[in-house]
C-alpha cells in the first residue's frame, strides 16, 4: 500500500520538524504585521503633518547606531550558541548565550538612556506619541526576548539540550532574530528617514 511503511521516524520535538517551529513562524508573521502597521501609522501621520518633523530637529545618530550594532552582535551570539549545541559544545553554548543576554540587556539600558535624553514625552506632541509608542512596543519585545534567552540559558545549564533535542533553542533563537530584524526597520524609520 504505502511506500513509506517502514521508515524510522524521529519522535517528539525535533528542530524544524517540530510544531513549535511552525508556530513561531506564524507568530512572527502576525507580529511582523503589527510592526508593519505601527510604521504605517508613523508614515501616514508624518506625511500629513504641518509641524516641523521631527519637531526637535534631526535625531542624533551616534548612540542609536552603536545600539543597533550591539543588538546585531547579540543576534550573532544566539546563532553561534545554537551552532555550538549542534557541535556538542554545550559549555561554549552556555557561555555564548550568556554574552548574548548581556548584549541584549545593554541594548535595553542604552535605549532607556536615550529615552531619558529626549526633551519631549509620550504626550507632549504627536511626534512624541509616535516615537515612544513605537520604540516602546519594540522595547517590550526585546524584554520578552531577553526573558526567553534567559530561560534557554537556564535550560542549557540544566543539561536539557543536546545535539538531538534542542528545538526550544531554535525556536527561541529565531524569535530573537526577528526582534532584532524589526529593530532595523524601526531604526530606519525613526532615525534615518528624517534625513531623506
Amino acid at each position, binding site marked *: 500500500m504505502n511506500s513509506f*511503511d517502514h521508515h524510522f521516524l*524521529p*519522535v517528539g520535538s525535533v528542530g524544524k520538524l517540530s510544531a513549535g517551529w511552525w508556530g513561531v513562524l506564524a507568530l512572527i*508573521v502576525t507580529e511582523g504585521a*503589527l510592526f508593519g502597521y505601527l510604521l504605517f501609522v508613523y508614515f501616514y501621520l508624518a506625511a500629513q503633518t504641518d509641524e516641523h518633523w521631527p519637531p526637535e530637529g534631526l535625531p542624533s545618530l551616534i548612540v542609536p547606531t552603536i545600539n543597533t550594532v550591539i543588538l546585531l552582535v547579540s543576534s550573532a551570539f544566539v546563532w553561534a550558541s545554537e551552532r555550538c549545541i549542534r557541535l556538542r559544545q554545550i559549555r561554549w553554548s552556555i557561555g555564548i548565550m550568556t554574552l548574548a543576554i548581556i548584549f541584549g540587556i545593554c541594548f535595553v539600558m542604552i535605549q532607556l538612556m536615550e529615552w531619558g535624553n529626549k526633551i519631549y514625552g*509620550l504626550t507632549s506632541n504627536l511626534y512624541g506619541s509616535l516615537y515612544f*509608542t513605537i520604540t516602546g512596543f519594540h522595547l517590550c519585545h526585546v524584554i520578552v526576548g531577553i526573558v526567553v534567552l534567559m530561560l534557554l540559558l537556564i535550560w542549557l545549564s540544566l543539561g536539557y539540550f543536546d545535539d538531538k533535542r534542542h528545538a526550544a533553542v531554535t525556536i527561541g533563537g529565531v524569535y530573537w532574530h526577528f526582534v532584532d530584524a524589526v529593530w532595523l526597520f524601526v531604526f530606519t524609520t525613526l532615525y534615518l528617514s528624517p534625513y531623506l
Partner: protein
Amino acid sequence: MAISNMTHNPGDERLERVPDFGRAPSGSDEEMRLANIWRSEPGWRGWLSTVDHKTIGLRYLVTAFVFLLIGGIEALIIRAQLALPDQTLLAPEQYNQLFTMHGITMIFLYALPILSGFSNYLWPLLLGSRDMAFPRLNALSYWIFLFAGIFMYMSFPLGLAPNAGWFNYVPISGPIYNTGPNIDVFALGMVLLGISTTAGSVNFVVTLFRMRAPGMTINKVPILVWGTLAASVANLVTIPAVSLAFFLLWMDRQLGTQFFDVANGGKPLLWQHLFWIFGHPWVYAIVLPAMGIVSDALPTFCRRPLVGYAAVALATMATMLIGFVVWMHHMFATGLPTVSLSLFGAASMAISIPSAVAVFAWIATIWVGRPVFKTPFLFFAGFVILFVIGGLSGVMVAAISLNWQLNETYFVVAHLHYVLLGINVFPVIGGIYYWFPKFTGRMMNEKLGKWNFWVMFIGFNMGFFPMHIAGLLGMPRRIYTYSSRMGWDSVNLITSIGSFILAIGILIFLINVIISLKRGEKANSNPWDAATLEWSMSSPPPPYNFAVIPAVASRHPLWEDRLEEGIRRSNLAEGYLLMKGHETLGTSPIDAKPLVIFKMPGDSYTPFFVGLFVSLLFLGLLLHWWSFTGLMAVASCITLIIWMWPQKTLKQRTESGTTYPFQGDSK
C-alpha cells in the same frame, strides 16, 4: 526536510523508531490502551484542564450560540422600539448602546467564534489526526474568548456599554465626546479578543500543514478546511491592525497620546484605515468557513461529490486575496474621501466573481445530484437563495452612485443581514443539524427541524426584505425612533413582526436541541451516509479520534467503492498505531508524507490560568490599577514559563544516557 533513515543508530527507541503498523478494532487491547491514554480526568479537574479539541470545539459552539441569543434579544428590543413611530420604550442613549452591543456581539462574539467551534471540533477529524498541533494553545484561545466576551459586557448592566457603533469611529469615540468607560471597555476587550483569535488561527494553520493523515495531499482536504485556512491567514495578517487601532485609541483616551487628536495633528481617518484593513478581510473570515460547511455537507444530501472542487477551493483563496487588494485599491486609486465608503460596498463588488463560482458549483451539485430533503439540506439550499439575494443587493450598493444614495440607510442594514444571516447563521444551523449526531450520538428531530427551517426562512425574509424598501424610502440606520409623517410605518411594523417570527424559529431550534439531546434517535457512526473521515469513527468520537492513523487516497474516503474513481483505496482499518503516550503523526505540508511522530501534551491547567491572568491584566488597565496590572503580567509570565518548561514526555529534552539514565517512556 531531513528525514532520519535506517543508517542511524537504531538503539535509541525513544528518539526515533519505526511506528507500529496494525489494527485496533474497538474493544481490542490496543483500543482500550489508547482510550486510557487519551481520556480526560472526570469532574471539575478535567473540566478546567482538558485540551481535547472536541470539548473545546463544543464549548466554542455553545458559548458563541449564547452570544447569538444575547445579540438576538438586543435586536428584538430594538425592533420593539421601532415597530411603531414615536415610541419611548428606549431612550436615545440606550438605543445607541443596544445597537452597538448588538453589532459587536454578532460580529465579534458570535460570527467567527461559532465557526471556530466547528473547525475546532472537526479539524483533526477531517484531517485524520488525533489532535490539534497546539492543544493547550487551543484551550487558551477558548478561555480568552470567553473572558473577552464577559469583559465587553462588563459595563452593560451599569448602563455604560459601548455606544459608538461596532466600527467605533473617532472622534465620536474619542476622549472629548465620549468620556465614560464605555469605549475603553470595547477597546481593551477587542485587544484581548484579538489574542484569542490569533492563537486560534496559528493553531489552524499549523495543524493543517503538519498533521494530515498520510496520503491526504493538499488537494484532497475538504472545503471547510480551505475556508478556515483562508480565514486564519487573513486573521494573522489583519488582526494586528485592529488591535493596534483600539490600543492607540485607548492610549489617546487614557494616557493622553495624540494619534487621533485633530487639534494636535492626529488624524481621525487613520482609524478608518486601520479598522477597515481588518474589516474587509474579517467579513470574509466570517463567511468563508460557513461556505465551506455548505460545500462539504450539501453533497452528502445530493448523493454525489461537490461539482468543481478545485474551482471552489481556488475561489475561496481568491476571495481572501481580493479582500486585501480591495482595501489597497481604496487607498491608492480612489484617494482618501472614498475610503470611508461603506465596507459592504467594495467587499461585495470584489467578492462577487469568486462567489459566483461557488454559487454555480452548489447549484450544479443540487442539479445533477439526487437531493434528499432532510433538514440540513433545507438550510443549505435556503442559504444559496439568500446568498444570491444578498449578493445582488451587494452589487447594488457597490455601484458608487447608488452607494451615495443608499449609504447609511436601512438598505445597508438589509443587505448586511442578508449576507450575515444568509451566509453565516443558516449554514451554521444547518451544520449543527448535520453534525449533531457526531457531536452527541443522537439525531435531531426531523419534524421540528422542518418547522424550524420554514419559520426561520419566512420570518427572516419578512423581517429583512422590507428593510430594503425602508432604505429606499430614505430611512437612515441607527435612529432610535421616527415620526409617523415619514411614511415608514408599515414597513417597520412588518419588519418587526418578521423579526419576532425569526426569533420563534430560533426558539424551535433550541427546543429541538434540548429534546434531541434527551430523546433523539441514536445515531450510528455514519447516519447520513457521508463521504468524509469524521464519519468513520463512532458517534460521538472516542477521545483519541482515530484508533489507527488512516491512509487516505481520495477526497471521499467513505465513498470510494461507490464512485470507483482511481484504483487506490484509502485504508481506515489498518494504519499507524502510535500508542506510546499521546502520539500522533506529523506529515509534510503539501504531499502529506510521514515525517515525525509528534508527542502531544496532555491535559493542563496552565491555559486556564494564563487566560485568567491575562484577562485580569486587562481589567487592571481598564481600572488604572497599575500595580495590579504589573502583578498580573508577572503571574502570566510565570504560568507561561511553567507551560513552556521542556518536558521529557514531549521529547523536548535530551535523552542522552550519561546525564539521564534510562527512564521508561511516558506510560
